[in-house]
């Protein structure tokens, strides 16, 4: 295995695009190194992007924030601006692993690891986050966070491409977001179900717009349109929330595995979507 730690993103892209064999980008390393040690993957090349200064930055942009690919969960959690803007995204990212893991793990790594249970992804999806990708020759493109993961462990990134940053956009007035997950313990588990909700209210208090995303209930994070429509136009009365929960459960296509059953995930997806919607609603109302 070769280890490279370039100081610019152009160098990183260059090294990656010229490499043969199995390559991995190392940001926090909390997934990659575990996979290496367990023998799941034996990379020929690891490119550490933490020596690229810009990757560590959180910068304001058009009322939102651009978060560099090497920004750790702990660093994000300490940023009052991002926390105030998209608390659900920050909370979701902070749920990844322990304090120790937070010291290393990154939101971008969580996204690119492409686990269906990734905590930050439903929150990024509902926040409408935009992912900036750099490819060979410095070519840049931007895609919604929703389009990065294509299946378990699979992304839409091409050979030589690196995610440089994620733009968390400006948040409309009277809006709020929230993310909740279910785990058997209080910490240290992978989500059995995750639910992110972002919503915006009309001045009269009715819901103008909503997004509901679910994790760990399908091969990728699901954006559940019927669950969102169930609360649009309502004041999130019990009836509307019941409809949202039912729509969330109906959208699930989970598997039975060591972490949960189909029955359990389906039911709890509705429960969590409902609870997350209530928190997002409270936040939107200020």
């Amino acid at each position, binding site marked *: 295995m070769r*280890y490279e730690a370039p100081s610019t993103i152009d160098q990183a892209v260059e090294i990656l695009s010229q490499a043969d064999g199995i390559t991995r980008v*190392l940001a926090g390393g909390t997934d990659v190194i575990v996979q290496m*040690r367990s023998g799941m993957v034996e990379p020929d090349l690891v490119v550490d992007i933490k020596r690229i200064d810009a990757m560590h930055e959180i910068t304001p942009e058009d009322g939102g924030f651009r978060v560099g690919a090497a920004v750790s969960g702990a660093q994000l959690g300490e940023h009052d601006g991002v926390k105030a803007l998209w608390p659900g995204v920050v909370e979701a990212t902070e749920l990844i692993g322990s304090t120790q893991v937070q*010291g290393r793990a990154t939101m971008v790594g969580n996204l690119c690891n492409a686990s269906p249970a990734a905590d930050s992804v439903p929150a990024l999806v509902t926040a409408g986050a935009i992912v900036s990708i750099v490819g060979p020759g410095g070519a840049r493109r931007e895609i919604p966070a929703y389009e990065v993961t294509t299946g378990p462990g699979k992304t839409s990134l091409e050979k030589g491409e690196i995610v440089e940053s994620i733009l968390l956009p400006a948040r409309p007035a009277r809006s709020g977001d929230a993310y909740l997950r279910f785990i058997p313990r209080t910490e240290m588990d992978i989500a059995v179900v995750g639910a992110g909700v972002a919503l915006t209210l009309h001045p009269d208090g009715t819901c103008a717009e909503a997004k509901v995303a679910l994790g760990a209930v399908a091969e990728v994070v699901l954006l559940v349109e019927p669950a969102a429509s169930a609360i649009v136009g309502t004041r999130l009365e019990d009836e509307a929330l019941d409809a949202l929960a039912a729509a969330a459960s109906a959208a699930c296509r989970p598997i039975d595995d060591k972490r949960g059953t189909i029955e359990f995930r389906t039911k709890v997806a509705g429960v969590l979507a409902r609870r997350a919607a209530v928190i997002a609603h409270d936040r939107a109302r200020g």
Partner: protein
Amino acid sequence: MSQIHVSTTINGDPAEFLCEPDETLLDVLRDRLGLTGSKEGCGSGDCGACSVTVDDRLVCSCLMLGAEADGRDIGTIEGLAEGEHLHPLQRKFLDHAALQCGVCTPGFLVAAKALLDHNPDPSETEVRYWLAGNLCRCTGYDKIVRAVLDTAAEMKGA
């Protein structure tokens, strides 16, 4: 596979080593530098026994490559006491019998120090969540949490 030359700082002292590209910082500390205070309990970041600080950030040394340590400032359990003076956390762990077998203790101490550096007056809940990545199988955590809270109280009073 050629080895990588790394210059770093460990517990305030300059250190240099050669390591394989896929070798973890934990393996380097234990097998190359003789700093066996950091323990491997899982090798997957789930137990915290290998906790160290890197540029004052708490991390699992099993989840970091040795090569990544270049130019960083590493803190391990071996650097917690100052000479013959134990850190207040170390004393309180002894006073409260906050260890039974003691294998998780270095990780807990490094993590608890990072907590108090970051939050000198934590609540019980904050202590419990901060330390959730450090597994202890012997104590049921009760005496560990008490020792950390008591240290915070003492350091605040000092």
